[in-house]
């Protein structure tokens, strides 16, 4: 990457961060101003600083439009900072729109998305300027910038200037070295010292070693103008204005410009010590893949030494290597971990806008922002989460009027939290709204023919129906949610991440959606099963228990296939050897093993030959190397070098039961 592109990518990343924090802070500002608190200066300053940083960065990397537009935003924020403009909801809305525009300008500058058109920008600039209360136009912003680019007039012949070089006595106090100024003068031409004035020097005992008592008469000849001289002495002329006059003789002096000083420094060394480096995420992914290969290779070495009975020294060395490999794996995985916080924070805006448009009052609480998840999981969970958050505001929470009638506070509570639990990450979206109406959902499902009218589903099972395609309980279709698509996609997205979603809802008191996700996608905790001669892995997250049934517990029910009774529940049996086309001698459930798995709140039994044990394996994509196989999420290489398929339990269940309705129990 060349320097320019590198700079742009740094700016892009930084700009994104600042735009996100602008949104968050503006919403906080609005919330605080609504409560009648005094203006939070720290917050306003932070907002100003974010805009300021974006403007400065954009200018530095040559994104003029973004820089100019942000300048207008900054002007308004400056007035807010100076308490000249009060904070209203309207102002915050305009500022939020402006932040959206900045975000789109930033994307467009990086060649993504479409930029806002000029009329849209102009309208926003006008809106922003109307808050300034005086005639500040966008043109002045551009003029400001233009004035900073001082165009130096070039001269075509040599000039000689006589300079009365008398600097302020305290000029050296701030680190200014008069010698450096004379050296700089030499860059512009030939410098001749005419006189040194020492008359201001005090007696030695009164002399301040850091004061300047000398002054000089200097002449400089070269292709320079008065502006060049002003520029040389720009930082010292405040206290003591520099006096000089052009004494160029009438006839042009024939003299070549003095070559630049020989003290030009050698270019390009980078020895600075940094606390962090930026790494392209692709390289990080490659590193993690390589570490995955290493873990597999390590496992093979370990297994081989064990099976061939290696010398104790070899075994000890291999064990040491194994420890290092495991540490390396932890480190590499850790590099991909990011906190969930920024994802949560972006929902503040979603909640605010939606609540405003629906006339609801919502307070969003966020906890566990520091919980870390694999980068690719965060990317993929963001959209499903957003959908669920919108659903909670749209369907879950009531209007202030409805809440008052229900005896609740007018402001609805929405809680987003993330935490670790049993080696997984749990994300909860919890509201204190009206809860799911099980009767309404069931009625709708009966109407749609999803379940028979005489169903015997429990409340939890009915709640799970909202994940079924084509079922939505919204009384009216809003522009937000409620078109009957969504929750099924949400569930599928979560399952693709090998996670699961559970609902806990009480009518009238609210709902909690609990999403359980694996820590990382690259590694899976699996239970190895043998089926025929093959080994398959079932993700531990899906497994509830394993049982060996009695012959009398197994029965075949017409149109529902093979069922087995487990602690009073009747669960469908999926014969893995049939589904995966493997020949197995163990065909009778009472001779084989049943693995009870849970998918979306329902349980199924997988018929396998035997359990081989739990192990952590590195997932290799089949889709990338071969083709998508329904019911298999990937493959892994076992310690003995054999390839084992990893079962995608939700997909397998869907494949087996896609022709049946969900209503069997």
């Amino acid at each position, binding site marked *: 990457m060349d320097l320019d592109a590198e*700079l742009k990518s740094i700016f892009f990343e930084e700009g994104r961060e600042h735009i996100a924090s602008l949104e968050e802070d503006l919403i906080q500002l609005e919330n605080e101003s609504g409560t009648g608190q005094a203006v939070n200066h720290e917050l306003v300053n932070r907002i100003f600083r974010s805009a300021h940083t974006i403007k400065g960065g954009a200018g530095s990397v040559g994104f003029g439009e973004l820089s100019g537009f942000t300048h207008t935003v900054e002007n308004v924020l400056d007035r807010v900072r100076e308490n000249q403009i009060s904070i209203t909801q309207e102002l915050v809305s305009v500022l939020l729109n402006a932040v959206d525009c900045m975000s789109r300008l930033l994307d467009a500058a990086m060649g993504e998305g479409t930029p806002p058109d000029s009329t849209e920008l102009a309208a926003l600039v006008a809106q922003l300027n109307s808050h300034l209360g005086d005639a500040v136009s966008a043109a002045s912003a551009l003029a400001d910038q233009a004035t*900073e680019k001082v165009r130096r007039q070039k001269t075509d012949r040599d000039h000689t200037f006589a300079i009365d070089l008398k600097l302020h006595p305290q000029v050296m106090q701030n680190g200014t070295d008069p010698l450096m100024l004379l050296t700089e003068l030499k860059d512009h031409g030939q410098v001749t010292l005419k006189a040194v004035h020492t008359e201001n020097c005090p007696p030695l005992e009164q002399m301040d070693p850091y004061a300047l008592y000398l002054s000089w008469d200097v002449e400089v000849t070269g292709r320079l103008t008065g502006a060049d001289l002003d520029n040389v002495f720009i930082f010292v002329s405040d206290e003591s204005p520099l006096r000089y006059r052009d004494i160029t003789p009438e006839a042009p002096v024939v003299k070549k410009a003095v070559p630049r000083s020989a003290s030009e*420094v050698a270019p390009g060394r980078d020895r600075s010590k940094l606390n962090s480096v930026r790494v392209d995420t692709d390289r990080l992914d490659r590193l993690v893949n390589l570490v995955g290969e290493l873990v597999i290779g390590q496992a093979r070495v370990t297994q081989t030494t064990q099976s061939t009975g290696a010398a104790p020294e070899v075994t000890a060395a291999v064990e040491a290597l194994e420890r290092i490999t495991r540490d390396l794996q932890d480190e590499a995985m850790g590099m991909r971990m990011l906190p969930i916080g920024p994802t949560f924070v972006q929902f503040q805006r979603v909640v605010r806008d939606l609540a405003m448009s629906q006339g609801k009052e919502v307070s969003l609480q966020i906890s566990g922002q520091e919980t870390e998840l694999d980068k690719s999981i965060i990317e993929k969970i963001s959209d499903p989460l957003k959908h669920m958050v919108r659903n909670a505001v749209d369907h879950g929470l009531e209007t202030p009027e409805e809440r008052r009638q229900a005896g609740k506070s007018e402001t609805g509570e929405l809680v987003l939290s993330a935490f670790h639990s049993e080696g997984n990450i749990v994300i909860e979206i919890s509201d204190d709204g009206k809860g799911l109406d099980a009767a309404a959902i069931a009625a709708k499902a009966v109407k749609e023919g999803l379940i028979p009218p005489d169903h015997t589903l429990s409340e939890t099972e009915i709640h799970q129906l909202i994940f079924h395609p084509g079922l939505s309980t919204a009384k009216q279709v809003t522009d937000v949610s409620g078109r009957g698509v969504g929750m099924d996609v949400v569930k599928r997205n979560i399952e693709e991440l090998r996670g699961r979603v559970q609902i806990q809802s009480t009518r009238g008191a609210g709902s909690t959606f609990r999403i359980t996700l694996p820590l990382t996608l690259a590694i899976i905790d699996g239970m190895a099963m043998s089926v025929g001669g093959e080994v398959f892995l079932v993700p531990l997250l899906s497994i509830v228990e394993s049982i060996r049934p009695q012959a009398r517990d197994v029965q075949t029910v017409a149109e529902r296939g093979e069922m087995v009774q487990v602690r009073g529940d009747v669960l469908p049996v999926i014969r893995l050897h049939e589904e995966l086309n493997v020949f197995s001698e163990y065909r009778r459930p009472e001779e084989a093993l049943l693995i009870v798995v849970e998918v979306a709140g329902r349980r199924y039994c997988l018929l396998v030959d035997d359990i081989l044990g739990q192990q952590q394996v590195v997932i290799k994509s089949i889709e990338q190397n071969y083709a998508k196989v329904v019911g298999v999420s990937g493959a892994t290489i076992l310690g003995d070098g054999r390839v084992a398929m990893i079962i995608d339990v939700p997909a397998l269940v869907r494949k087996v039961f896609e022709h049946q309705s969900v209503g069997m129990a």
Partner: protein
Amino acid sequence: MSGVILIVDDSATIRASVKNTLDQAGYEVFQAMNGQAGLESLKQLSGQGKMVSMIISDVNMPVMDGITFIKELKQNPNYKFTPVLVLTTESQTSKKQEGKEAGAAGWLVKPFEPEALVGVVRKFIR
């Protein structure tokens, strides 16, 4: 002769741009995110036996702003005479004056051309 320069700015873009430019001009550049971090960097660097010959600092930064940073700096006899250049923007003309009063030796207006930065730095160290 080259020198060691510390750039203090909360914007990674500005830091990277200053560092790139000055690296190429042959200076050794260290970075800090705000005034407080700047003071700590100076302490660390002097611990490694490095004396910073010039400091370039933004004005508006979180944790510790540039003006406070310069004032703190000037309390330390080691850096009393180290030239400090403040980075300002066109909307902060008053900051130039404030910076000078705090003890800055000069200023540079953002955004700047690389040549302008090198030109200003060369006023103080070569």
